[in-house]
């Protein structure tokens, strides 16, 4: 469920990046790579778990599924917070600088 949540976040981000790639002001490429990196790593984790559990991997307990979904959503939120911090520090549109040094 964590893998699935991150993959969906990565796909949505990639679509948004493609739509706004011309301006490049939102630094969405960083967020895309962040989610894709995590998705690939969780994919490896899932493959190893599948090798260990077999078909049982696809029938998790509802409580485990809920916990994994909660974890996935929290990971997506953390990714967004990191991206927001990068966006505000890099400040490609100069909005923060303009606000800070406005007389």
């Amino acid at each position, binding site marked *: 469920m964590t893998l699935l949540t991150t993959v969906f976040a990565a796909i949505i981000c990639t679509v948004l990046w493609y739509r706004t790639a011309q301006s490049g002001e939102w630094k969405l490429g960083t967020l895309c*790579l*962040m*989610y*894709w990196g995590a998705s690939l790593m969780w994919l*490896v984790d899932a493959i190893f778990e599948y090798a260990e559990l077999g078909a049982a991997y696809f029938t998790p307990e509802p409580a485990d599924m809920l916990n994994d979904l909660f974890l996935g959503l929290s990971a997506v939120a953390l990714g967004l917070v990191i991206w927001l911090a990068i966006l505000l520090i890099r400040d490609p549109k100069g909005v923060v600088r303009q606000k800070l040094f406005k007389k």
Partner: protein
Amino acid sequence: MACFLVSAAEAVVVTVAASRFEKKEKARETAPAACEGLSAETTAKIPFSRKLKWLRNLLWGGVALLAFEHVWHGEVVPWFPFLTAASDPADAAEMLHEMGTVGVAMALLVTVVWLGMLGVAALAEKRALPSLPEQD
């Protein structure tokens, strides 16, 4: 248990390499002799430091989110030795085995995907070259 540490180590190496390549490329750009010889070929090429930054972002992004997952599961703690498995020799051996299998596989897969991205970028560079106007 601590599989993300392998990718973290790779991410540190890639970050250092990216900054070194960036410095070299900037020095080459600012050199007057290089500016004179600036051709369509060099302007159509994506700098290698930028390509390394793709791998850096893939790795650091994955490491950050996986580290969070480990904190979530209580495998990483904010006090020494930071990894709960490190305090018990039997758990430590299992952790090292996991790092050697899952951790290495994670770092390898991310690197292979990045190599694929480099291949696609190389194709795009090749396609961009003929469309550029020829220099006198």
